[in-house]
């Protein structure tokens, strides 16, 4: 049952060292504030799960939070590589990172299977690719009706799902809209769920068929206005594409990365303070 709590308390109480954590968001509504809080609290040995790991996972990997990444596309969209992810994979810095690599179709199906309480997902996929040779979780079944060979992947059942949404009401019911990615599936597949929101309102006024996560599917709701920045929240603020571009040179070298993280994330107590710290210097270089 959702409790409206601070993000600090939510992370402290619901995310433990060694957990599998899915911080989802498909370009839109990426939970940056929550990722920073995980870094501040020094979580270690996490299995990070996300279809599209981008800047926030780059920061968490570079700060040593993760030992494994389950993913299907890892990059800085439209800009280039994730330099901290690459450094971890190519050089083992700051720690070696195990990869479990999928396609988008397989991961989307695996979340769906997790939400549906099934042990595995089935799809017409992975035909002719080298991915199954490097990811032993990818297997196949023969369709009992047609004889077609279909790919299978195990259901994703994260210990914790973390998402950002536009609104919650005062009882903790959550509403999100726009590009909704796999967030609903991730929350329903996970054992525990944290949702950060742009605002907490008296009434959601959700239209029928809206993506609503009822309060009894969520453990913590945290008010974090702007908490998806530099990704975006439809109806609130746009994607800060210039910030994604500015991240590339910051993350390229270990020392510039660590210096930036110390000044803006470790050196601040909240996401609001972090945002204020960015305002004091030019990050949009």
């Amino acid at each position, binding site marked *: 049952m959702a409790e409206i709590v601070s993000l600090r308390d939510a992370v402290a109480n619901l995310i433990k060292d060694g957990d599998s954590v899915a911080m989802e968001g498909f370009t839109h509504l990426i939970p940056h504030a929550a990722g920073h809080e995980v870094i501040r609290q020094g979580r270690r040995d996490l299995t990070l799960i996300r279809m599209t790991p981008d800047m926030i996972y780059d920061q968490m990997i570079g700060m040593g939070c993760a030992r494994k990444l389950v993913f299907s596309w890892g990059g800085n969209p439209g800009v280039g*590589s994730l330099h901290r992810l690459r450094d971890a994979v190519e050089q083992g810095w700051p720690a070696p990172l195990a990869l479990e690599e999928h396609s988008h179709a397989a991961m989307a199906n695996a979340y769906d299977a997790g939400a549906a309480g099934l042990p595995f997902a089935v799809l017409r996929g992975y035909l002719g690719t080298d991915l199954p040779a490097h990811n032993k979780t990818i297997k196949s079944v023969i369709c009992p009706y047609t004889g077609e060979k279909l790919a299978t992947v195990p259901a994703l059942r994260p210990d914790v799902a973390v998402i950002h949404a536009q609104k919650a009401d005062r009882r903790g019911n959550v509403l999100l809209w726009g590009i909704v990615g796999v967030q609903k599936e991730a929350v329903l597949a996970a054992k525990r769920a944290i949702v950060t929101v742009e605002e907490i309102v008296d009434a959601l006024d959700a239209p029928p068929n809206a993506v609503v996560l009822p309060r009894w599917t969520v453990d913590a709701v945290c008010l974090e206005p702007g908490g998806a920045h530099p990704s975006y929240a439809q109806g609130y603020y746009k994607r800060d594409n210039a910030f994604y571009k500015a991240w590339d040179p910051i993350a390229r070298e270990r020392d510039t990365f660590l210096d930036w993280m110390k000044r803006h994330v470790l050196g601040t107590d909240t996401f609001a303070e972090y945002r204020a710290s960015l305002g004091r210097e030019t990050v949009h270089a």
Partner: protein
Amino acid sequence: MHDRAYTADEMMTVAAARALKDGTVCFVGIGLPSAAANLARLTHAPDIVLIYESGTIGTKPNVLPLSIGDGELAETADAVVSVPEMFRYWLQGGRIDVGFLGAAQLDRFGNINTTVIGPYDKPKVRLPGAGGAPEIATSAHEIFIMLRQGPRAFVDKLDFVTSVGFATGGDSRVRLGVATRGPTLVVSDLGILTPDPETRELTLTSLHPGVDVERARAATGWPLKVAARLDTTPPPTPDELEALRALNQRTARAHGSDA
């Protein structure tokens, strides 16, 4: 090409855009394919249906998205669906005419690599990975591929097969159990390649103006087959160039720096 009124990238984008027919349902990869698909929509194909894997169906962005899920895509879409629905109902369900992909590496049978350069466990370069491409490559009715031609991109042997084209050629794609047509068109900054009907090897069928066969061969990591009748791609028209440049200028302004 410096004496021409357009760049090689502009020629590539225009040539790829022309290949998309009006009314086509096109699953669009980010980057070069996104520019070409939107140019098609803004010129000869106003009723093309552009779909991005973020869940946006029938999107009509005024500027090119930097990411596959920019807000612009959702705001201008006919419908926005969840990512599981996108891959299950719309792609796997067989509703996509053309999957339009980019690549880091391409081989002579139109297989593509976007995963690693070097060995998987000790990569020289860790690339972003598969994304939607493996299932786009096998579930869309046909595939267009767009990438700049050079010996490190057009390679003799892929370091990793991320998304299958014609596998090892001939009927090997069919024998893998793939029912769709595969890569019917590759557009580069030098010319256009299409698969041989028998061997399925990519064959140079058109050169862009000012490019000769020797240059195309030098930019290809395998012995490049050249069609008996080699066309010259018609240069961009003033209307095509104007539409493309206006799109790029709007995009650069919107993203706060040079696109």
